[in-house]
């Protein structure tokens, strides 16, 4: 459709300028118009796109939808490249999938703005209203909830459902956005900053099929081991945690209202139970590599026992900490008698879902630059975090919203989409938001990775004090909900 429009425009242009023009350029327009009319089928001869997004995961697909729906980008050519297959979900599968994400209200509104949230709610999602986070080494706990348990704090959505919803939305946008599945990129060629006589000023992408495409703006959404980032040689601050996460679907002993997210910090790492439905929850247990392997090898009953005791047992608490903790709590309740909340216990687990449990290694990573000339990184390609705060996907969706808004404004101002000016704005804005969040998550992880008394006392007091201050808790929730 694009080709026909361009050919028509070319002929119109010819007619209009025939008076003023006695130029070669008239002939050039005709020939280009004819050539582009021939490209009715995808011959991939260095076709120039306005935007190419590399990576069709949650964040990449969301970016494609977001750009495709933007009114200022109407008529622009957008391409999404995904190495895997198209994820169609005609019917929601009965069994829950093991990879889930906590979607904050901010991300939910971004997804609803691109029309995907509607599909998600029709398929399956679980809102939760309260979160309880507590320590294994002491009695300290903190609960987050919206006032009177009315509003939802966040939503637990399976990753497959998010991708399927976005794919469905992309199908509706096929005019603007083209998606190529099973297209693995083998090579990127970067443009020179200054235009030389023979050089092509666009980013050139070579696919495994041999096809090459060019673009004015490349968006790298290809995950924590981003090829785009590596090929650009962007220095990345990253290290691996000595932890792996074990994920599984849990069947609860009895049906319950299940609208609370539970997370307990064990010395080996946090264990989290996230609600999926009244009878099922998702497990994310971050622990040392060795322990994670052991957990995978346990039979179902022993695994369930391990989970229950991780949530319920108190053997890690020493006398000193207990006394200190209760003294502090007593002191605080004198100052603020009404604050604080009683400790609740998570529901007990009876069994695990039919899909096997898996483990994956955890690490942290942050690209020192999110942008280069004609390239931008979004999602895990730019930043990778520990799942303990449930923020990984949300940071990615925040990148999508920010970059879309800036690219849209640039298009409305007639700017070159790959120009550094608006991309620098994206980098500044997102780094300012992402870095504090990542630092906080990393700090939490380190603080809770030990059962040395000083650290435990510090975090005990800190947690209890924070729990008593509703204003501070509201700030934390607001920051995490963006």
């Amino acid at each position, binding site marked *: 459709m694009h080709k026909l429009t361009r050919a028509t425009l070319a002929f119109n242009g010819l007619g*209009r300028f025939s008076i003023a023009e006695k130029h070669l350029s008239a002939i050039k327009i005709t020939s280009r118009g004819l050539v582009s009319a021939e490209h009715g089928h995808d011959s991939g001869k260095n076709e120039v796109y306005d935007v190419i997004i590399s990576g069709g995961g949650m964040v990449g697909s969301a970016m494609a939808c977001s750009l495709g729906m933007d*009114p200022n980008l109407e008529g622009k050519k957008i391409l999404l490249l995904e190495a895997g297959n198209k994820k169609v979900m005609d019917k929601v599968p009965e069994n829950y999938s093991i990879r889930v994400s906590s979607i904050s209200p901010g991300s939910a509104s971004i997804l609803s703005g691109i029309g995907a949230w509607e599909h998600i709610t029709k398929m399956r999602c679980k809102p939760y209203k309260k979160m309880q986070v507590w320590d294994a080494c002491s009695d300290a706990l903190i609960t987050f909830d919206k006032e009177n348990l009315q509003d939802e704090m966040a939503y637990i959505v399976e990753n497959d459902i998010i991708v399927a919803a976005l794919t469905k939305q992309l199908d509706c946008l096929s005019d603007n956005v083209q998606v190529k599945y099973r297209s693995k990129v083998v090579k990127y060629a970067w443009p020179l900053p200054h235009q030389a006589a023979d050089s092509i000023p666009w980013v050139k992408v070579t696919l495994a099929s041999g096809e090459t495409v060019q673009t004015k703006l490349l968006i790298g959404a290809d995950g924590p081991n981003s090829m785009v980032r590596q090929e650009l040689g962007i220095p990345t601050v990253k290290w691996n945690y000595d932890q792996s996460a074990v994920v599984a679907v849990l069947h609860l002993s009895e049906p319950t209202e299940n609208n609370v997210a539970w997370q307990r910090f064990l010395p080996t790492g946090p264990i989290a139970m996230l609600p999926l439905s009244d009878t099922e929850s998702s497990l994310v247990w971050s622990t040392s590599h060795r322990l994670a392997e052991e957990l995978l090898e346990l039979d179902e009953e022993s695994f369930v026992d391990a989970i229950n005791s991780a949530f319920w047992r108190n053997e890690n608490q020493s006398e000193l900490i207990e006394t200190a903790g209760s003294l502090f709590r007593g002191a605080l309740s004198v100052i603020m008698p009404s604050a604080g909340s009683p400790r609740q216990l998570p529901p007990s687990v009876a069994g695990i879902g039919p899909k096997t449990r898996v483990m994956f290694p955890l690490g942290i990573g942050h690209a020192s630059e999110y942008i280069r000339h004609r390239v931008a990184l979004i999602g895990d390609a730019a930043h990778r975090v520990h799942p303990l705060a449930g923020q990984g996907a949300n940071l990615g969706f925040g990148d999508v919203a920010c970059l879309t808004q800036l690219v849209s404004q640039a298009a409305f101002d007639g700017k*070159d989409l790959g120009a550094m000016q608006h991309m620098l704005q994206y980098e500044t804005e997102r780094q300012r938001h992402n870095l504090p969040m990542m630092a906080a998550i990393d700090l939490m992880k380190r603080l809770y990775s030990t059962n040395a008394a000083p650290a435990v006392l510090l975090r005990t007091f800190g947690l209890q004090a924070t729990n008593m201050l509703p204003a501070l808790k509201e700030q934390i929730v607001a920051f995490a909900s963006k």
Partner: protein
Amino acid sequence: MYANKFGRVMLALYSRNTATACGGLSTATACGGLPSAAGRSGFSWTAVCKQRTLWLQRTACLNTQQNPVPCHVSARSASQTTVDPDELRRFQSLAGKWWDEQGEFSALHAMNDLRVPFIRDNLLNVHGVRHPGKPLRGLRILDVGCGGGLLTEPLGRLGANVLGIDPVGDSIGTAQLHSSTDPDLCERVCYRASTLEELAAEGDEAEEEQGAGQFDAVVASEVVEHLADLETFAFCCNQVLKLGGSLFITTINKTNLSYALGIVVAEQLLRIVPGGTHDWDKFISPVELERLLESNGFSVQSVQGMLYNPVSGAWSWTASTAINYALHAVKVRDDPHTEQAGGGSSTHPEDHPTAAPHS
């Protein structure tokens, strides 16, 4: 180095322009010893300039034994061409550097942040057509003095059919090369090495039956301060525009402040602009420009001041038009003096570009 070049160019410009003003001669002789540019002191420059031009005029007139009655002297010649050969030469040497965003033209690149929205929004107000993604679709725009196409390309991306003209052939070559790789622009953006008068004359011949102009808008950004004859320019703009079409001009005001900041600071101290780019006598105040345009069939719709921040390298809108300003005018009638091409024989006294500097 720049100061010397500036001085020498100023010398040459003054002599040439005033000589031609007095008798239509285009001699290249320097008229006696002119005070060097470096000899400026702190009192009112307007007074100094006024004195100098009058002195030059008297000297030139005596030397060439022309009509002893002091004629109107302007820094521009009352010739039939808008092009000043010195300006041509200067921009020729810079022809390859247009697209270096950190180079000599960085301030012009940054100015797009103001002038593209200015043009776009005013055109949308006038035409009211809404095409999401291509807001200026269907409009024909002429970019006079397009240089390397810095403003032509964004307008093309917004969907307009743009013709960029510039007398410097090398600049047109640069512009064509830069836009050739973008399939989006190729169809809508064209360039020609031509002057405005040539284009207007052509259009005239071709469309005599219709008597209508060809363009919805004419953009002359940072151009009028380089022209030799503004009267002809305004007349030609009127000719090529449709009735109700828009004229967008951005230029520099003729004030003490614009001298201090626009020439001394910008060219000599901070080197924001290459030395010798601007001639203060060619600057024109908004009032003067408005008068000129209204006598050529335009109605000025808005005038907005612009300010450049050399630290951030960004432009911003400002209330004061003391230095840079942008102007939007609309053609309300065809120019009545269609037979009298060029301003030399114009009978209306107020149409003469006067020498008295306006601060």
